[in-house]
């Protein structure tokens, strides 16, 4: 397990013989009567960037704080690299954390901030100096060694915080909303840099975020959390294309939900009778349900076709009126009102610059999606 595994080409979670690097076993955390984290079990492998994604108060930060040792689980076990972490204080754990507020020491220079952890380990001065220089060049902050944190911009502070948490070469790096305080442009640049740094060092990352875009770009796998529980674990694509339930579908990206009941449950397809859509929706995958069970079909807005002309051989077709149009440059978002009042969101890439082919308010349009575009979600 000593070689560096790049997160982009390895999928250790599909290998039944792989040994997880971080094991979270049935961890529950209660604060008085309030349950913050409930029965969470996760296996995270070496070299992964694992994102815990969820809204505020879903318990993701509490879970992270239990990994770093600032909180103790009420029950359950946390094992890092084969070692049970119960009772081990933060200063003896093989983890380092990058804080949401960066938590740089305001009275120390960048250099001293980064060297702090190495000094606590009692390393010789010469080695501390070279490691500080190395990590500063990795995060491209060589010229700022003697500055104080309040003389740095938000992006620069973020880099220093990252450098400080990486310089001790932790087995596991925990990042709490690492890009939360940056503006959008800087955030996008930093995301890719973060991945590059992670791949070059081979450290395992556990990232907490509420930003689904951040989670999608950064992670090898995502664990979606709500109300203290993990609801789905998977690669970004799995989470987006095959959300397990309505919460996940709704939380990641936007989605059209059509309520209905199972009308036919075949070997390789399901038909959901949806009065809301005014349609029997065809979905080409089987589910384990009973006829008449309440389910919903989730369809992503960008997978719905829209046209004034007939849509040809699509399996699921509807008609409606254009209610609202939002022009976003690269794409346009349409709100279509079906004849029964239900609104459907459709995203279309703006392929041409001309206005001729575009739709207008009040236009009658045909909508439709291919069978495979819909996903049945329960609960």
């Amino acid at each position: 397990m000593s070689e560096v595994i790049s997160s982009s080409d390895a999928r250790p979670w599909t290998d039944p013989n792989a040994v997880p690097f971080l094991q979270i076993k049935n961890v529950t955390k209660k604060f008085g009567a309030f349950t913050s984290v409930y029965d969470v079990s996760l296996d995270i492998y070496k070299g992964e960037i694992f994102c815990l994604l969820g809204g505020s108060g879903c318990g993701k930060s509490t879970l992270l704080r239990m990994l770093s040792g600032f909180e103790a689980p009420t029950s359950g076990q946390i094992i890092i690299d084969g070692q049970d972490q119960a009772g081990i204080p933060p200063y003896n754990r093989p983890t380092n954390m990058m804080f949401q507020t960066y938590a740089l020491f305001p009275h120390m220079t960048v250099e001293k901030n980064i060297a702090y952890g190495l000094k606590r380990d009692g390393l010789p001065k010469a080695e501390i100096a070279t490691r500080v220089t190395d990590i500063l060049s990795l995060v491209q902050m060589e010229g700022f060694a003697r500055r104080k944190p309040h003389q740095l911009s938000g992006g620069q502070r973020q880099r220093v915080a990252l450098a400080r948490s990486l310089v001790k070469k932790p087995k596991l790096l925990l990042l709490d909303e690492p890009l939360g305080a940056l503006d959008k442009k800087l955030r996008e640049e930093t995301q890719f840099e973060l991945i590059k740094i992670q791949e070059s060092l081979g450290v395992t990352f556990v990232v907490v975020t509420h930003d689904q875009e951040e989670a999608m770009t950064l992670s090898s796998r995502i664990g979606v959390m709500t109300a203290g529980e993990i609801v789905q674990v998977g690669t970004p694509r799995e989470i987006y294309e095959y959300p397990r339930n309505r919460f996940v579908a709704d939380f990641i990206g936007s989605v059209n939900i059509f309520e209905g009941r199972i009308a036919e449950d075949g070997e390789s397809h399901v038909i959901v009778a949806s009065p809301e859509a005014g349609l029997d929706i065809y979905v080409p995958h089987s589910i384990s349900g009973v006829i008449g069970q309440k389910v919903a079909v989730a369809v992503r807005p960008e997978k719905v076709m829209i046209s004034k002309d007939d849509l040809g051989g699509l399996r699921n077709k509807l008609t409606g009126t254009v209610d609202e149009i939002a022009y976003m440059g690269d794409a346009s978002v349409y709100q279509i009102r079906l004849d029964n009042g239900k609104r459907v969101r459709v995203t279309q890439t703006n392929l041409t610059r001309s206005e001729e082919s575009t739709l207008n308010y009040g236009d009658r349009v045909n909508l439709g999606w291919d069978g495979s575009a819909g996903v049945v979600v329960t609960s």
Partner: protein
Amino acid sequence: MKRKSRFLAIVGVVGFVFLYAPILSLVIFSFNESRLVTVWGGFSTKWYGELFRDPQILDAAWVSLRIALASATLSIVIGTVASFVLIRFQRFRSKTLLSMMITAPLVMPEVIIGLSLLLMFVAMESLIGWPGGRGILTIIIAHSTFGAAYAAVIIQSRLVDMDLSIEEAALDLGARPVRVFFDVTLPVIAPALLSGWLLAFTLSLDDLVVASFVSGPGASTLPMVIFSKVRLGVSPDVNALAAIIIGVASLGIIIAALQLNRSSKVSQQ
């Protein structure tokens, strides 16, 4: 708009004159040549010279200074401990009571503080034989009671503002809790400690009432000496002494204010 600002300017000037004209006249008359306090007889610094040849005043100044140094330091230690208990500990029973008790000396009349401390010292002496008689030590203890209250208020506000994750970051990087306190917490709250210390120092230097209650023979503070001198008639060297005290006290307060101001600016970033 313009009219309003002129009105405000006039009110401001009147207010400042009301507050500072007496002090200003005192400072001016400290440079008076004449022995008569209210008659101007030309500029002179002779009363300052006279002052420094007066052993009674010099002794008292030395006593006051030692008391102020000791009680300010003691105040900071007590104030820091109390602030940590109040801010950092999880809710415990009687926390509100403790919080009120620590700030009570701010609003308690000095006469009552002085009297109650005197009674306590007398009772303690007859019970356990300590403190033996009243003097510098008892004044230091007395001044620390209200000095600690001021210090606690200042340190608490700094601790509340402090980002806890800074301490957690130090723990996370391998520092033990005691180490974290000296490496991170103490430097971060240092400006509050300094301004609290200066405030306690100034308060101790100024105090007359409490000191009069708890002092004993041979331990006259500067305010006590001035007060007894003035009772025999105002002499110009007291003016000179007052001018010096005003200078020292305002210097202390200005430094304290600048410190607090600067530290809050840094922490806002």
